[in-house]
């Protein structure tokens, strides 16, 4: 039963699969994001309260949810690498960090652009904003720790442990709007039964989210491929994969 799992853990096999999958996710991301942008900007009805200002939600919410999603992914990959000593999992965790940091930054930036007209300020020290900022620092710490350790094996394991410790912050961010009475509005799409958003608006948000997900998968596969190639640079299959096509 575990053969497929072990097979996936072998770098050449992963490299082949990733090479085949990346274009699919890349194109899907492009189509979904183009459709989502068009739908979000032109088709979706205007909000009764925030008028057209709410449309930034189509970038803000997907990047904010991805910032958390990627962190959890990174921590899971890191834990898998630490527990089963799979080097590939460490490579994936390493590939996740810069993408996650970018999405966190994007969520903070779009949030602050949205906050200026709605709340009248670029930034407030609200629980969700602060914890999202902490998430950015966690990503930075992860990357800085990796960069500071020369030995690859030790860098992998040390940063994996750090990623796992940092998971504590994830539920704090996720539920900060429910736990504390803050300025940030409560979650829009997490209430599965009855979303607080009109379905004409929601559908584009979900399309955008799916597009961002596909984009993340495409980029993480590409980065992980590069990471795997670099780690296996003195092995035979790399030469075969790169030259002998």
């Amino acid at each position, binding site marked *: 039963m575990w053969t497929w799992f072990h097979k996936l853990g072998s770098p050449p096999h992963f490299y082949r699969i990733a090479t085949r999958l990346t274009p699919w996710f890349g194109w899907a991301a492009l189509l979904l994001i183009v459709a989502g942008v068009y739908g979000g900007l032109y088709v979706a009805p205007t909000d009764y309260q925030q008028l057209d200002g709410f449309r930034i939600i189509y970038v803000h919410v997907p990047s904010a949810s991805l910032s958390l999603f990627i962190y959890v992914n990174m921590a899971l990959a890191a834990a898998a690498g630490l527990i089963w000593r799979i080097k590939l999992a460490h490579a994936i965790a390493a590939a996740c960090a810069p993408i996650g940091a970018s999405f966190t930054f994007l969520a903070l930036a779009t949030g602050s652009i949205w906050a200026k007209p709605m709340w009248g300020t670029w930034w407030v020290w609200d629980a969700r904003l*602060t914890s999202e900022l*902490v998430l950015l*620092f*966690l990503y*930075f*710490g992860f990357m*800085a*720790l990796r960069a*500071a*350790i020369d030995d690859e094996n*030790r860098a992998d*394991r*040390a940063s994996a*442990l*750090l990623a796992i*410790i*940092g998971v*504590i*912050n994830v539920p*704090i961010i996720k539920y900060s709007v429910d736990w504390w009475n803050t300025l940030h509005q409560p979650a829009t799409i997490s209430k599965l039964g009855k979303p607080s958003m009109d379905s004409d608006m929601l559908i584009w948000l979900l399309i955008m989210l799916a597009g961002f997900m596909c984009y993340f998968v495409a980029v993480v596969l590409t980065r992980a491929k590069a990471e795997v190639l670099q780690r296996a640079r003195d092995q035979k299959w790399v030469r075969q994969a790169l030259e002998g096509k």
Partner: protein
Amino acid sequence: MDIPGLGTAFILQVRRDLQLAFRHVGQLANPLMFFIMVTTLFPLALNPMPRLLEAIAPGVLWVAALLASLLAAEGLFRQDVDDGTMEQLALSPQPLALMLLAKTVAHWLITGLPLVIMSPVVGYALFLPRDAVPTTMIALALATPILNLVGGSMAALTVGLRRGGGLLSLLILPIVMPVLIFGARATDMAMTGVDPAGALYLLAALLLLAVSLTPFAMAAAMRISLD
């Protein structure tokens, strides 16, 4: 050979670390001095108006305590790793997590407890209302061990690094931010006459969480750093 029990080993380790610390009394006082110095800087840099100082007192007190514990975390395991004691501890029949917890307890007795004891004096200098002093002391007594435990895990991760530098603060600060928030809130609540029990309970819960989880994180991190 007779292997000492866990309790005995724990106490012996704490006693050894305290003894070592008391032989270098100069270094012992460093975090405390730092704590006092940082809090003195604020009245100098800002306007020394009592009302202004009173308003910023909780923040200054807590940030200074946090920075002092950061400063101390750097040296928590460094010497033992350099002279090989840590490897012996890792090889010893006692669990490494327990021994590192003992080291952190000793470290708290040396660097954290003095901050708690000195906080009324510093608070007085910042015109902190007298009613807020007991709460602040309790909150600091609950929070400083958390700071040391988290600092210890991160110090264990970075102990082998030659270019540690500011890395340790980048790793510790995001994790301990809730401690700072609840601690400062407890002081703030006591100042305004609100019952600070909620914030104190949260700090106590965080302390329990830290005591039960961080020793294992510390031990895992130390094993990674040692090989």
